[in-house]
């Protein structure tokens, strides 16, 4: 369940409502659950509420881990790139 998507905050008003944008589509959402969020942050939005602030360092770390894995695989089995 739980379609929550990563969107960037472009503005915040006094009522803890933020304007967020994804790919040119904008919405007002509530930051009541993520009071620490700032303009420029990315948040996970579900049903009009931000439920978490995304940590770009963690995201980068995950992607780097995947890339490292890929590099290790290449070294060990350079001919074994399965085609699916």
């Amino acid at each position: 369940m739980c379609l929550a998507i990563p969107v960037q905050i472009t503005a915040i008003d006094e009522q803890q409502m933020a304007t967020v944008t994804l790919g040119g589509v904008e919405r007002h959402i509530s930051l009541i659950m993520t009071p620490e969020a700032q303009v420029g942050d990315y948040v996970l939005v579900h049903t009009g509420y931000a439920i978490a602030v995304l940590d770009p360092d963690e995201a980068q770390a995950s992607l780097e881990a995947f890339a490292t894995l890929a590099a290790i695989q290449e070294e060990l089995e350079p001919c074994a790139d399965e085609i699916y």
Partner: protein
Amino acid sequence: MADQILLAHGSGGVLSHELVRDVFVRYFSNPWLDDLGDAAVLDALPPGRLALTTDSYVVQPLFFPGGDIGKLAVCGTVNDLAVAGARPLYLTAGFILEEGLPLETLERVVASMAETTRAAGVAIVTGDTKVVNHGAADGLFINTAGVGVVPPGVALSPAHLQPGDALLVNGPVGDHGLAVMLQREGMGFASTLQSDVAPLHGLIAALLDAVPGQVRCLRDATRGGLASVLNEWTSQIGIEIEEAAIPVREEVRAACEFLGLDPLYAANEGKVVIAVAQAAADVALATLRAHPLGRDAARIGRVTSEHAGRVVLRTLYGARRIIPMLTGAQLPRIC
């Protein structure tokens, strides 16, 4: 005149005549309509086979980014003729109006229809108006029928599809469906996404001229989206499309992410799916891209003899999955 539609406007009396004269004839004016005969008599039709189509338009909201029900009513019928290979010529326009509809709303719609017919080079030559009780018509409904002529030598049909044929689309899919969805009450989104509603006969005529005899069939991908059109073509043959090749605007992708929708099933009002002989595909694509309504045309797949009756999508990951026909409208989801 009154500032809203009354039941009497549909009853054939004085108010009806005033409405026809002051709104419909005023905006649509052409020699056939101005005569106001019970039927429009059309002569000097170009040589070829007669094509006839009809559609009713009940879209809500009446005005949406990029268009309105009037523009839709003209383009939809023009496009149905165009994908049959016909040159669209004459349209009818039947209106069912809800009692209480502001006259200003009707005029906006009619003005839009007039502008669209002028741009498309067609004429609304006859029509009808009825008024129903408040609550029975969602504002207004429009029916348009269209007459066109298919030039000699042009014969388009899914029966002509052959394994190896290339499948093209003239641009990104899902614009109309998502533009309308985002504007619905309860959705609260803002975007610059516009409906792609447009008359396609100029684009199609250019295509048919560039690769004569090589286009197997055409279909406009309206409700049900690209996926439904492709499914309609499979019975003796199969279709395979590449997920990576299907053009989708970033805003449509984003809106689909928000609402849990699939752009393959979202409505279009200015997109045509083209099946063309493989040898002619490159020229066909170049022709589309040279036209304003085909700048982002793309090759999306091919006809195949495998899995007859099925549309199969090759995903970004190389796996293949069936693309079935849509059952019921796509609804936004949170899960």
